[in-house]
């Protein structure tokens, strides 16, 4: 029986990372989709940046920000005695950053697909902005959001570079499936590599098919 612990860690990290980026991605996407302000396109670019930057560059940014001597990490280490470096929580942070753009882009498209007229009707019928977001925008955008969550989850499962920089590759602690494949191949353990690769490929295919089905089926004719 091959060691499947990295798979469970991967699922845990990916789920936490998706949850972490969800709130922020939805808020940023709503701002960009519904508000007009200076720097709107810049905000969109910053939110999309992790999609195109090399994961190692993202990892480097995270170290600069969250490392023991980093801007935020230094403060946390001095005051709380904690560090994200080389922990599974650090892997969550890295996976959240790399998967963020997928959620953000899907959420922006989902919000923009909701006709503004429904929101105007809700305003006239007595809703304040938060109420109509909850009652109109969110339900009508829910499929697009869910598709974004699934894509982000799939991406978070597969991260290698950023996670390696931040959390390292410590067996039993921060070794995710992607790292385990790397180690297995390096050690010549092809049976373990095959098992991990097969499981990850099937999971991602299932997620992508489900996403497509979700987006293709229209609920309201």
């Amino acid at each position, binding site marked *: 029986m091959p060691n499947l612990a990295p798979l469970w860690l991967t699922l845990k990290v990916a789920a936490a990372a998706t949850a972490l980026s969800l709130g922020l991605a939805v808020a940023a996407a709503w701002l960009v989709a519904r508000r007009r302000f200076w720097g709107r396109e810049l905000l969109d670019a910053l939110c999309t940046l992790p999609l195109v930057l090399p994961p190692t560059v993202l990892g480097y940014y995270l170290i600069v920000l969250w490392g023991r001597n980093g801007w935020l990490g230094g403060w946390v280490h001095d005051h709380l005695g904690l560090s994200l470096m080389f922990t599974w929580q650090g892997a969550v942070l890295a996976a959240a950053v790399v998967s963020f753009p997928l959620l953000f882009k899907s959420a922006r498209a989902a919000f923009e697909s909701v006709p503004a007229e429904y929101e105007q009707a809700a305003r*006239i019928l007595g809703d304040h902005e938060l109420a109509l977001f909850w009652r109109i925008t969110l339900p009508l955008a829910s499929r697009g959001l869910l598709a974004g969550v699934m894509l982000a989850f799939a991406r978070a499962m597969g991260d290698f570079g950023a996670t390696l920089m931040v959390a390292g590759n410590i067996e039993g602690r921060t070794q995710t499936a992607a790292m385990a494949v790397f180690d297995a191949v390096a050690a010549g353990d092809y049976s373990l590599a095959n098992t991990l690769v097969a499981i990850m490929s099937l999971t991602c295919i299932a997620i992508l098919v489900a996403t497509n089905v979700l987006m293709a089926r229209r609920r309201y004719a």
Partner: protein
Amino acid sequence: MQLAVDIHKTLRSREREFHLHATFAATDECTVIFGPSGSGKSLTIQAIAGLVRPDHGRIQVGSDLLFDHGAGIDLPARSRKVGYLFQDYALFPHLTVRENIAYPLKKPWQWGIPAAIREEVEAMMASFEIAQLAGNHPHELSGGQKQRVALARALIKRPSLLLLDEPFSALDATLRQRMRLELLELRKRFAVPLVVITHDPADVEVFGDTLVIFDHGRVAEVGRRETVPGGWRQKVCHLSRWREGGRGHGEKAVG
């Protein structure tokens, strides 16, 4: 009911500028704002409803001051007590007919329809003869049914004014006349003043106690229909021809 509007608004896009200057007052129970597409009539009722903020001016409905640039008054749309019928009704597609009509009475966090308002919703549906559609979604309804649902939803909170944006343009000709009569009947039953915007002379015939004619973002004519100098039919038909010739882009944006 006294409706007094005096507003300025400038819209800019890359290609052109549109200036709206709408000044009119109406005391009748039915007012028609007539004009070719692109004449600023939609923009005007959007401003009355609070969906568009005028650059300056004043809007008053009865004793309620809705907007006064000078005094810094700009009531949000939700507080204006104005009903609005959208051109294609804007029924919420994810909600059933019953949920659509209950929408204005429900608190945002309430799940389902509380017993306290259920009765009122059922009564409203009965009076609009749409009780049998209660569980249907908007995409399952015909044009006339959609309009009834939208009217029921707009009237359930008893607004002090009902604004209608081209209310019959989405219906076929036979249904159009029937829905006009239904609307007249509703007006009496709910005692709600109507402001109808249209480019259909037949709507002027039925609803135009007061007639406001828009052209190129300005009010070209305002008054009792019968007192329009030169006869309202001539004025209206002249503008209708102009519209057929000059129909073009940007209809929805500024129409």
